């Protein structure tokens, strides 16, 4: 029975309708989660005993860094599904991830630099965590560049899928870099086994922000994937229907 779900999800008209319907159901919770996370993080959480109010950068830095990795995994996984099952929806999802992922990777790096300056005394250091995160940005940019260089959308999908899948080895390297090597960067406080090493007043706003950014990403992905689906399905009959162009010939 699981395959019924898989086939329906893989059906472009079904996915298009579902994505249209689901977008506000992720967008509104995302806004509420981020708003409450911001209030909790900027106002309610106590200052850190070492970093004072400077630690509050975490409430934008950690969600940006989380998205930079999570979006890459979604991009690579859907690229693999597209390659294996030749599924148009999967390619549309994969292609939708790159701009979002690249911008949040750049944001994670920028907020990290602004945090590093007062705490470490430097904006940049060729440190394992920072260097591997920079490599992630180049992987996203390489993916985008490769797609732009190929005119045929089907060939662009297949070629960029291979790049995305190969690059996924960088994701665990980024995550474990702070454990495997000596790094200026702190070890994980939340994304690890065992209890988070943070008091609840600091942790809860962070979890709200992480959940909010994740829901925001899903909403963005659903919007973008619809557009990518239209680009790949332009000769399909369902497109006219989905755009409401059946009756008049224009919309």
């Amino acid at each position, binding site marked *: 029975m699981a395959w019924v779900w898989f086939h329906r999800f893989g059906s472009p008209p079904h996915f298009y309708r579902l994505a249209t319907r689901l977008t506000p159901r992720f967008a509104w919770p995302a806004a509420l989660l981020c708003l409450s996370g911001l209030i909790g993080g900027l106002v309610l959480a106590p200052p850190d005993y070492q970093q004072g109010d*400077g630690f509050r*950068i975490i409430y934008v830095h950690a969600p940006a860094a989380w998205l930079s990795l999570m979006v890459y995994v979604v991009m690579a996984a859907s690229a693999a599904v597209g390659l294996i099952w030749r599924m148009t929806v999967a390619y549309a999802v994969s292609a939708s991830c790159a*701009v979002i992922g690249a911008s949040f990777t750049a944001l994670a790096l920028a907020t990290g630099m602004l945090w590093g300056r007062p705490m470490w005394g430097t904006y940049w250091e060729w440190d394992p965590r920072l260097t591997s995160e920079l490599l992630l940005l180049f992987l996203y940019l390489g993916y985008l560049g490769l797609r732009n260089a190929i005119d045929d959308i089907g060939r662009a999908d297949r070629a960029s899928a291979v790049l995305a899948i190969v690059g996924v080895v960088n994701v665990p390297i980024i995550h474990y870099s702070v454990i495997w090597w000596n790094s200026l960067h702190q070890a994980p406080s939340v994304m690890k086994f065992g209890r988070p090493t943070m008091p609840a007043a600091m942790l809860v706003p962070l979890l709200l922000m992480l959940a909010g950014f994740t829901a925001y990403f899903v909403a*963005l992905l659903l*919007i973008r994937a619809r*557009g990518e689906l239209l680009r790949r399905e332009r000769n399909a009959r369902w*497109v006219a229907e989905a755009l409401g162009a059946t009756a008049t010939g224009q919309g």
Partner: protein
Amino acid sequence: MLKFLAMGGYARYLWPCYALTAAVVGLNIRWALRSLRAAQAQARRRIASVRAVS
């Protein structure tokens, strides 16, 4: 209020982080909507031209 904005002396690092985040969040919404609308407009033009021929 001024104390809040000063952020214990970290204002010049902290607020740019939040401003950059707001910019990236806002721009991504704009880019996503623009990408969808461009694809929809393109698909509509194609449907219209196919109808005109047939």
